[in-house]
């Protein structure tokens, strides 16, 4: 017997989506999982050519992701900390777009340091040492290893992300003196993570980056860079120039195909040692700052990241004061991000722990994360 629901149901028949639409939607999801901050506002900014380019690159990376890769490893070219915490959506998009645009078509001017050592760049084993202006990073990296923490057996860090005037997320992370890391959106989440032995230091998505950061604390700057880039599965690292060029050209060609499919127009960026150096610096900033954000309470991670950042020519360091406390302000300038935008980290001048991260992209609301650190006793949580 037919009833009114049957009649209405017959009105709802519809032609199915095309198979490629399902694939494309899954690719968007994969990209979002790899890079939540970048993708979140794709819909809101989809009219922008640069967004399309960012999507293109993410799709390229997702199609080659291997099963064991973590979300962090799949990330590409984006403002680092904003990405881990998913801030900023709009800023993430614009920054990613700007950086992708840099990768595709900006002239490979490179930093002065990069330009001096093109052969090293080509081999992915730069011998860069930070110049005087980044020396405070190396100095602090050495001194924080000897700082005795206050009472307690762990750092509890509350990270509050704000996009424009809107609070996007609050993330709590517990760093034990035994080098374990537990994270969640509340202290309750942390206790749950402890009960489940979900130690981010060893089995979280950032574990490879954290391990590389720890290694960098006691490595030469060049070795530290190589280890971090390898941890990030950077395909160009360790290749000779000819092999690098082959991979570079292949990546550019793949990007072109996707850009054209989406109706875009961007010239491929020709291979050069300087372009590779820029590419490495950008990747190093991205992955090192992700490691710092994920491992902020771990002394070795902080020391390693500071040493790594000191090797990047587009990074500048200044003494500053934040709420009466001595801090260092570390700025990655526009040349890191394709000519516009910047990221500014403020860290405690004594401990090296994060105080604030601000991502700036012209035309979008500012995205910032404020870190509040306190010593706690794990058992008392």
């Amino acid at each position, binding site marked *: 017997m*037919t009833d009114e629901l049957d009649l209405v149901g017959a*009105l709802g*028949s519809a032609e199915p989506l095309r198979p490629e*639409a399902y694939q494309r939607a899954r690719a968007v999801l994969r990209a979002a999982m790899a890079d939540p901050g970048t993708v979140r506002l*794709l819909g809101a900014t989809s009219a922008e050519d640069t967004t399309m380019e960012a999507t293109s690159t993410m799709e390229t990376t997702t199609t080659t992701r291997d099963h064991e890769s973590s979300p962090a490893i799949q990330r590409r070219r984006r403002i680092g900390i904003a990405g881990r915490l998913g801030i900023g959506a709009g800023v993430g998009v614009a920054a990613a777009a700007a950086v992708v645009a840099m990768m595709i078509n900006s002239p490979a001017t490179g930093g002065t340091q990069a330009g001096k050592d093109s052969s090293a760049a080509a081999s992915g084993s730069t011998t860069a040492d930070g110049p005087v202006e980044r020396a405070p990073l190396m100095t602090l990296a050495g001194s924080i290893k000897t700082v005795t923490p206050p009472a307690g057996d762990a750092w509890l860090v509350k990270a509050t992300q704000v996009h424009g005037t809107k609070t996007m997320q609050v993330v709590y992370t517990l760093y034990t003196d035994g080098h374990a890391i537990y994270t969640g959106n509340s202290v309750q989440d942390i206790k749950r993570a402890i009960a489940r032995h979900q130690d981010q230091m060893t*089995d979280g998505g950032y574990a490879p980056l954290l391990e590389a950061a720890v290694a960098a604390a006691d490595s030469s700057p060049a070795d530290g860079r190589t280890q971090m880039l390898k941890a990030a599965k950077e395909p160009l690292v360790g290749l000779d120039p000819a092999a690098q060029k082959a991979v570079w050209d292949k990546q550019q060609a793949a990007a072109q195909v996707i850009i054209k499919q989406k109706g875009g127009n961007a010239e491929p960026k020709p291979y050069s040692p300087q372009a590779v150096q820029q590419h490495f610096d950008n990747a190093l900033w991205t992955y090192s700052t992700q490691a710092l954000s994920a491992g902020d309470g771990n002394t070795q991670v902080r020391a390693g990241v500071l040493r790594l950042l000191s090797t990047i020519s587009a990074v500048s360091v200044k003494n500053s004061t934040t709420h009466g406390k001595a801090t260092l302000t570390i700025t990655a300038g526009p040349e890191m991000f394709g000519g516009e935008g910047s990221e500014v980290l403020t860290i405690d001048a004594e401990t090296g722990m994060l105080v604030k991260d601000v991502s700036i992209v012209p035309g979008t609301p500012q995205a910032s994360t404020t870190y509040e650190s306190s010593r706690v006793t794990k058992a008392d949580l």
Partner: protein
Amino acid sequence: MASDADLIGRSLDGDVDAFVEVVERHEAAVGAYLVRRAGRDAAEDLLGEVWVAAFESRRLYDRSYNDARPWLYGVALNRLRRYWRSRPAEDLVADVPDVATGSDPWSAVDLGVDARAVLRSALTRLKPEEREVLRLVAWEDLTAADAARALGIPAGTARRLLSQARTALRDAPGVSALLKDRNSTKERHR
């Protein structure tokens, strides 16, 4: 087989592929839902946004429910509302399909043009919230309780809205005649 709730739990614990498995289970259903509500072109654009929105809000998923499909419809409806707000009126697909684009030839009820017009007219007279529940039940094959989950309303409210919608439909001009005709035709062919 792991439930959707288990997979979402694993996803929260960092298992990247677990959430994709949830998506693969429900992509045909959610895709069809989007087509019905926004047309195929828009649906193809929106599907990825729905997955991203669902992924980002998975922490809010009530894992006492094994089946994530009603929740995903709710996420999809939120994206649709954003889409509708952002589009000029002339670009929007009617809530009730005007034409049977790609209609299922094996549908249990084969509607003619006149019957469609009668039903469309009856549906437009329903309250929006009644229509929303009715669509989820009639088109997406949800129970009233699952429709309530999708819409974020109490199950009792959804049942009441569904009952009101069905009563209003049955009483609508032309619909009762249509039902009588359909059922008497079936009787004659027994």
